[in-house]
């Protein structure tokens, strides 16, 4: 199995719902919570997030596009974050999910250094490294309604820009979606084989003008008016 997410950059409006829903679910999750929030009402509020949404601009005005870019753990196949871990706290499951065993971590940060994507954040309160769990405690919880056995961020996303599934199964929704839309992994040149796929914006739909829909020749307002009245007459007489 190769569980992961598809993130659709064509519909992501950068609303931060995924990031917040993630914080909410995992903050009280038995395997990842609590997530530290320091100075919560003070001058420099700062906390542990598994998912951060950044915003970029590509191109120059007026041909510029604003790109909203959510990032969480990509559950890499060659997850160096796991191999560098000296304590064995970081591990990869058979289903591909990369987790940190909170009871084993010594908080050395090496895994965070090894992650090209900034997907790991140290919890200064517990002293342990934390990261996206792919909501492993939702997706396998058979006591949740079937349609809710999804990551919190996927459930929340108002534009359905996030999809969860198994990339090992070529017939899975995520595999097909990624194939159809040219999904790509981040920083592939580093060869971590990230599992999560990002979908580039779709091509702009073209409104094809019918051949006979010629642009009417521009005439004086008066001529245009009589032309319009003529049209009206045969439109209504029909």
């Amino acid at each position, binding site marked *: 199995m190769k569980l992961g997410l598809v993130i659709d950059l064509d519909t992501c409006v950068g609303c931060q719902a995924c990031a917040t829903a993630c914080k909410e679910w995992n903050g009280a999750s038995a395997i990842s919570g609590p997530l530290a929030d320091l100075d919560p009402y003070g001058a420099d509020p700062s906390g542990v997030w598994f998912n*951060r949404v950044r915003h*970029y601009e590509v191109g120059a005005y007026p041909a510029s596009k604003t790109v909203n870019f959510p990032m969480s753990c990509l559950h890499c196949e060659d997850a160096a974050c796991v191999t560098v871990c000296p*304590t064995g*706290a970081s591990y990869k499951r058979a289903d591909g999910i990369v987790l940190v065993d909170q009871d084993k971590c010594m908080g050395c940060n090496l895994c965070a250094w090894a992650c*090209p994507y900034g997907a790991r954040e140290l919890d200064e309160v517990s002293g342990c490294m934390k990261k996206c769990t792919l909501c492993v405690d939702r997706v396998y919880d058979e006591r949740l309604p079937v349609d809710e056995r999804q990551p919190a961020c996927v459930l929340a996303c108002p534009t359905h820009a996030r999809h969860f599934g198994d990339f090992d199964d070529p017939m899975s929704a995520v595999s097909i979606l990624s194939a159809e839309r040219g999904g790509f992994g*981040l920083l592939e040149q580093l060869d971590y084989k990230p599992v999560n796929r990002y979908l580039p914006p779709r091509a702009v739909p073209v409104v094809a003008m019918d051949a006979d829909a010629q642009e009417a020749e521009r005439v004086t307002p008066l001529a245009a008016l009589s032309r319009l009245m003529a049209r009206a007459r045969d439109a209504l007489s029909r």
Partner: protein
Amino acid sequence: MKPAFSVLLFTVLSGAGLGALAIIALLDLAALVGMIAPLAPPRLQARAAAIALLLVVAGLCASTLHLANPKNAWRSWTRWRTSWLSREAVLSLAFMPVAVGLVACWWWDVAPTMRVLFAVATLLLAWMILVCTAMIYASLKPIRQWHTRHVPANFLLYGHASGALLVVVVLRSDGYEAASLVPLVWLVWLLFVAAAIGKLLYWRFLRSDKGAITLEQAIGVPRGVRPPPTPDAPASIMAARLFDMGHAGGTFLTREFVINVAARNRTWIVVLMWSFGFVLPMVWLALGLARWQGAVLAMLACMIGMLAERWLFFADARHTVRLYHGEPTT
């Protein structure tokens, strides 16, 4: 990368300690097989080795200061199969008794065979640990400034240079006459010159943008994450810039990866590195190893210079995470 002082201290101290032990062990072996005259009376060698060992231990202690959850530190002996940090931990553990053994051999001047055994083991372990430490950094693909052969090479050079100096310094302050140290001093000169060259080569490597990754690549502009190309704005020239970080204050990521050093401050550190790390010790050597106070000062200067070198090593490292925080290229 954030230069965590505990880590700088660790790599510099244990580097010098390991280098020193390697050097004495090596010279002792050479002497045993009669290639060279003995470096110094065994008891003096033992004292020097003991002090070097203390530096190693001090370094290891410093390293634990940077752990957020030290109570699990012992677990770092478990993953030596894949983790350079774990290997370093395991080997360091093994190294202690061996090094102590060697010191004992010299102190009680035991039979050569034993001495050879311990010397060889110490030598090999010291070298391996130095390499492991270096590989912790050199193995990190996201940091192209670290992911290079320069790193292990340099770590070995600095370790041995500062280590060799340490040996001279200790023996000298121990009252050992300068004359008999001349061959070793030549070695120190050699090592420091090599180290300096190593640093310069490393900097030349940094200046080349070989393997550099751009923000555009990081967010997939070449993969179609861009406005539809227009004649006046073809895909090829589409630059990307950060509009909003998505969080108001600092985060673990900004604190750990996104430190920006003002060019002015950097220059000062560079000056510090050359002057303290290289020039001052050499001056002391050139002055004919004057006095034990001079010796101690030379060693201190060297350590400070090495800390500066290590600080630069971190400050110059640009992790790919910085791309996502708006840096145009690594």
